[in-house]
Structure formats: C-alpha cells, structure tokens
C-alpha cells in the first residue's frame, strides 16, 4: 500500500460538489453559485467587517474581495456614528448578514437576532453564542438551543460552530441553513487546526459548509475549499493585514483556486515516489570508462 490513508483533501466529492473529472466550474461566476437557503451568490468569500481602520478601508475591501455577503454587529446607538456603515454596505450593493457577536447565552443571542431583523429587515443571522472571552469558542448547548428557537421564529440561521461533526449534524437537524465551523479561534490566524474534522463535517452534511474563523492567509482559505467547504468567511485576515486590499485580492483568488482544485480531484498522497516519466524506451548507455 503506497498511498497514505486519511487524506482529508481526497475524500469523495459530496453532494453539491462536482466529482473528480467533471468539467471544472467557473468559480466566482454565477455558473457555480453558492446557494444558501435558496439564495444564490456568485462569490464564495464572505467578508466580516470587523477590524478595518476606517469605513473607507472597509468599502475598498468589500469591492476588491468581490464578496456579496458581509457581516455586521449590533451595538448601542452612538449618535455621532449612526448609519454610516449601513450606508457603505447599501452603496456597495451587497447583502448584510447580522451577527450576534458578544452574546454568551441563547437568550441574549435571540434578542439580538430579533433586533437585527427589525433594524436591517433581514431574517438572516450569523448566530454566535460564545463560552468565554479568552477563547471565543462556541458554547455548544446554548448555540443549539438558540438555533432551534430562531429557526422556529422564522430565521435563516447560519451558526458559528466548533469543528465537531456531531454538533454540525445537530445544527442541521434543527433546521439551520448552513454550518460555519471554525478552523481555529476567532482572530487567531492559526489556520485550520483539524482538517480531518472539517472533512468529516463536509462528508456528513448536505448543508453549505462555510469555514468561519482562524484563516490567517490565502493558502489557508484555499485549503478550506480543497477540504470541500462551500465558502470561507474572513474578517481579521483581511482587515488586519498590513495591506487589506492586497490580502482581499489574494484570498479571493485562493477561494476560487481551492474550489477549482477540489472539483479537479487531486492525486492521492504516496509515501514513495511515482515517476511521471515512463521507464520504457530508456536507452542503455553501457559501461563507459569514465
């Protein structure tokens, strides 16, 4: 046995992903749309708006990233700042995905989602219920409880979740529209700590899988897509890069490249070499003196 088992990037293509050898999709175009709850997006890169130095920088990054769905958070009204971020998003022509960042309980997350629905006239919510402020890791029981109640209240729920495949299944069971597993903790830039779990989540759910946290640079976004994720959400990786626009462009290309590579069907990993040049016809040079 010369191939290495358990290559997470080489699992059979799940439903919704073209099998190996199928014609490559034209990623980033409407011919290979990302479909969430019946809504189609040409871009597979979601942009988190946190961390940009200014609204101008955020507007530039939205444009360069090609993202069509961007997150916002809700906080108490600051009369000096009111409205401006929504003006930028409306002018950019992209859809808004409100989040429940900062909520520690299902109860607070539900109220926040209901406020977001009223403020932005959307029933979509990126559901975040975190367990503590040091790890910002999801609180699984609270998350599942909030997801179920928000689905029952008519929300399109996109939960930020751990890389636990069982929790992803439970979130699917209660009616979520996608799952958004973390690669590593929010803002850590550690990439994808457990690619095997991401691959298992991909394998076990029919929902869109959106890699949500931990991406630090373009190669990690490409890796997420090669693992079979349907999309990637980046915030800090772009907003806190030295040159956010350059990184937005890089990650946009990486998401498209990773999508294409996934559908292309990569070769298996092997422990030993396998020549790509045939031995047949190899000349015999005999025994020379030198």
């Amino acid at each position, binding site marked *: 046995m010369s191939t290495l088992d358990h290559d997470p990037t080489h699992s059979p293509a799940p439903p919704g992903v073209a099998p190996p050898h199928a014609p490559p999709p034209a990623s980033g175009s409407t011919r290979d749309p990302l479909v969430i709850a019946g809504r189609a997006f040409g871009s597979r890169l979601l942009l988190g708006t946190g961390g940009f130095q200014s609204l101008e920088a955020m507007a530039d990054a939205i444009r360069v990233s090609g993202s069509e769905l961007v997150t*916002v*958070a*809700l906080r108490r009204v600051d009369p000096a700042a*009111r409205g401006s*971020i929504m003006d930028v998003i409306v002018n950019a022509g992209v859809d808004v995905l409100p989040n429940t*960042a900062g909520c520690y309980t299902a109860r607070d997350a539900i109220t926040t989602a209901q*406020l977001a629905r009223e403020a932005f006239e959307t029933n979509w919510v*990126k559901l975040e219920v975190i367990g503590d402020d040091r790890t910002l890791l999801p609180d699984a029981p609270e998350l599942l409880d909030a997801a179920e109640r928000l689905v029952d209240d008519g929300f399109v729920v996109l939960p930020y979740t751990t890389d636990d495949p069982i929790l992803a299944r439970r979130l699917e069971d209660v009616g979520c529209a996608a799952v958004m597993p973390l690669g590593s903790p929010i803002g850590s830039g550690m990439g994808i700590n457990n690619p095997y779990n991401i691959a298992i989540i991909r394998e076990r759910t029919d929902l869109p899988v959106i890699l949500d946290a931990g991406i630090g640079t373009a190669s990690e976004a490409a890796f997420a897509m090669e693992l079979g994720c349907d999309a990637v959400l980046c915030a800090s990786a772009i907003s806190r890069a030295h040159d956010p626009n350059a990184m937005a462009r890089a990650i946009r290309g990486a998401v498209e490249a990773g999508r294409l590579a996934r559908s292309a069907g990569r070769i298996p990993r092997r422990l030993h070499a396998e020549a790509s040049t045939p031995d047949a016809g190899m000349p015999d040079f005999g025994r020379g003196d030198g």
Partner: protein
Amino acid sequence: MTSIRLNGEQRELTAGATVVAAVALLDVTPDTRGVAVAVDREVVPRGSWDATVLAEGAEVEVVMAIQGG
C-alpha cells in the same frame, strides 16, 4: 416624571412618554434607518414606537450596526 434606563443610563421622561421620546434623546427618530429598539427585552417594531408608553423603570436598548464579525 418617569425614570427609565436608556442604553444603560438613567434618564427622566415626562409621565406617559413613549419610545419616540426616549429615542429622541439619542437623536433617533422613527425615520432613522438601521436602528432597533427593545424595551425590557422585547423588540418594539418602529411602527409601534409612538404607541408604546414607557413604564417606570423600563429598560430601553437602542441599537445600530457597527463593524463586526
């Protein structure tokens, strides 16, 4: 007078004041886009602001979008 907490701060309103009077303290009107109000954790749709009288001790939260996530 009616005492309420508005975004965490103690504020005084005339008796019988509605949500409209409270949010006005934050320069918000029913025409302001992208804001939402909860009173004692219940979302009050903007169409009901002028009909919602605030009780003594009401907790009023007025929120808007910020960069995040």
